[in-house]
């Protein structure tokens, strides 16, 4: 379980850097989504189901939707 936690932490770091450094905004949103997914599994491994549930609903659900709609309305690279 500890090795899996380290692998997930590595993926979290990689996806966070990808979300910050990529130039395409849609790719950045997808990177942020993958980042929050990794974070959810990490919370479940660390036995915090409450925080994991909040992370699922807020970060994977509402943030992605709001970012995509904002890109759509502002005429970004969608």
């Amino acid at each position, binding site marked *: 379980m500890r090795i899996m936690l380290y692998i997930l932490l590595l993926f979290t770091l990689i996806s966070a850097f990808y979300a910050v*450094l990529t130039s395409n905004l849609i790719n950045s949103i997808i990177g942020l989504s993958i980042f929050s997914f990794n974070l959810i599994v990490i919370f479940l491994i660390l036995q915090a189901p409450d925080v994991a*549930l909040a992370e699922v609903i807020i970060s994977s*659900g509402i943030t992605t939707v709001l970012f995509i709609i904002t890109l759509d309305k502002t005429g970004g690279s969608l």
Partner: protein
Amino acid sequence: MRKGYIVVLILILATLLMINLVPVLSNFNNLNSLATSSQHYIEHGIEETGSINLVTSILLDYRGFDTLGETIVIFIVVSTITVLAVPNLGYRNDNICSPIVKQSISMIIPFLYLLGFYLIAYGHLSPGGGFTGGVLIAITFILLAVIFGVGYIKAEARRELISRSLIENLAALGFVISGMVGIAAGYNFLSSGQLGLSFGSPGNLVSGGLIPIFNLMIGIKIGAGMSVIFSHLIKEE
């Protein structure tokens, strides 16, 4: 070039954070002696607050002021967006979504709604709570608006948004008033476990003193507030 600066800045900040954390992480065995209040919560939390879920009992009973701060933040955001982003048009969808998407979403939405109310009502028994359930209820409204494209006329949209803002304000007021029950009984503000009105034994649906009422108020407030934010932002221009 600017990206390079950002990466270097992030790395420097991360190193500083790690240097700060090294003395805490190195004597990991001494952490238990430092954490006396968390030991108290684990040992006496259920009998003092009456809720099985210790996270909820900390959020709404021991640290109720933090939750009040969070709800005030959401309240200020909703008020600001209501003033600044005035909705003029109904949001019209250009029929991007296929009938398959519309049918499947219309089948999913009742269960999402039910799950949101389940999370609010069982907040003191299982993982979840007012904030999570409220956001889930708001997500159903967002899905409806995105998939089907709400095309209200101006006056109708105004009226619906005003009623939702009114629900949000009333829920915020209800949270504060149910927190004042503690003051009326002679204890602190937002206290529920000290009052001694735990209806039923811990583990039942009706238990935990005022915690289910706090959860209900926060859920209604967050659900209405998030949907108001979304509707105002998407119907602007």
